[in-house]
């Protein structure tokens, strides 16, 4: 049964000045795609469902872990080990049995993203992944729909609306992804920051969908829980920012450069062979103390430029980090500095732990 905009559940929204029954009807007819059912998703998804959005699709390829539960309140201890998208769907169904809800236990990736937003009125990126952020931004721009985005890490968070058709998108704030960005896996996060930012994202989504208020287009809102203060950064079109040229550009599968990477199983064989490569860990010291590959040398990525001469440019070296982003950046640095036999570990220590050494603790 489709969402009925006249349902008593929505009485306080219909009574809201600047909103009214017309806005409620627009929500009932809206289709929203939300990437991420984690910390931000746990705040934004229930608000959108309970407000009477007609259709919500959730994308998440992750499973619920115990360390998620303090902030990812869509999930409960009994959900640990379940796909987040499915667990989220159960919670949302209880809130909004009349909303058309779809769970995709899959990564929002280039191959599927374009079709995923085909009928969507709005894309919401509640993921914690920079690669996904730029993909979501570019897909929304190509499809001509707005993107509501948010971030939460440590004690602070940010929220904004990227809307190419209205003059600005995420690349006008940050032209390109930052491969060295920290994640809340390594930094920690105050759970209520996810609530504040996720709720602000829901406000932006409801405004954009109903045409009410003034969405955060060309303004990013920053919140710092340490002071309880908010600040705003105004920004305009950056004429030099890289833009996606076409739908084909966006969906082209990027073939990894095999000469640069080593797969976990391949590395195991190399380490067991006659000429094992040197292992270079470019993560933060606290990550290294938590778990590292046996015999690895630690030089955090930030220190690599000043310490690069400690390394032998002719030696076989395998660089690794947590997931393979920072190590790729380290390898770029090393290649420019004249290293000829260096490679990096595809998928980082996390994939190594999953595929080669299950005894190694993951984080």
């Amino acid at each position, binding site marked *: 049964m489709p969402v009925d905009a006249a349902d008593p559940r929505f009485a306080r929204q219909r009574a809201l000045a600047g909103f009214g029954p017309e806005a409620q009807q627009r929500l009932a007819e809206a289709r929203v795609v939300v990437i*991420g059912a*984690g*910390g*931000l*998703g746990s705040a934004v998804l229930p608000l959108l469902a309970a407000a009477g959005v007609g259709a919500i699709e959730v994308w998440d390829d992750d499973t619920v872990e115990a360390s998620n539960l303090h902030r990812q309140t869509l999930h409960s201890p009994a959900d640990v080990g379940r796909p987040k998208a499915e667990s989220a769907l159960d919670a949302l169904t209880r809130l909004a049995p009349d909303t058309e809800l779809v769970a995709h236990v899959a990564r929002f990736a280039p191959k599927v993203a374009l079709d995923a937003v085909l009928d969507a009125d709005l894309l919401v990126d*509640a*993921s*914690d*992944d*920079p690669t996904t952020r730029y993909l979501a931004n570019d897909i929304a721009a190509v499809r001509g729909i707005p993107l509501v985005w*948010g*971030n*939460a*890490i*440590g004690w*602070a*968070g*940010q929220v904004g609306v990227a809307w190419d058709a209205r003059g600005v998108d995420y690349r*006008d*704030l*940050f*032209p390109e992804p*930052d491969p*060295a*960005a*920290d*994640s*809340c896996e390594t*930094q920690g*996060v105050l759970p209520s920051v*996810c609530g504040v930012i996720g709720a602000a994202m829901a406000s932006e989504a409801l405004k954009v969908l109903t045409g009410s208020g003034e969405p955060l287009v060309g303004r990013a809102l*920053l919140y710092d829980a340490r002071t309880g203060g908010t*600040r705003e*950064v*105004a*920004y*305009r*079109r*950056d004429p*030099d*920012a890289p833009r996606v040229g076409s739908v084909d550009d966006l969906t082209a599968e990027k073939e990894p450069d095999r000469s640069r990477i080593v797969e976990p199983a391949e590395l195991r064989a190399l380490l067991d062979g006659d000429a094992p490569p040197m292992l270079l860990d470019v993560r933060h010291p606290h990550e290294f103390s938590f778990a590292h590959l046996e015999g690895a040398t630690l030089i955090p990525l*930030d220190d690599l430029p000043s310490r690069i001469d400690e390394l032998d440019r002719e030696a076989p070296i395998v660089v690794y980090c947590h997931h393979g982003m920072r190590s790729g950046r380290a390898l770029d640095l090393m290649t420019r500095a004249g290293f000829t036999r260096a490679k990096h570990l595809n998928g980082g220590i996390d994939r190594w732990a999953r595929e080669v050494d299950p005894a190694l603790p993951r984080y």
Partner: protein
Amino acid sequence: MTVARSIEVRYFAAAADAAGREEETIALPAAATVGGLRAALLERYGAPMERALRTGSFLVDGVVSRDDARPLGDRVDVLPPFAGG
């Protein structure tokens, strides 16, 4: 004599941590560029600011400016990249 001008600089997130403040006014030569401000900030605040600036954005009067040769405006926002969800 070099004519100085005042630039209102606002720091965000890790850049604010590095500077120990959220904003300040910095005097630079009248012809100062983005690169000149970058150098001045590194001199004042050292390695933590270097990390914040490496992949962050300078917004000169609201427009991202990656070209160090670009002239400065009246206000510059120093914004490290966002992450986390």
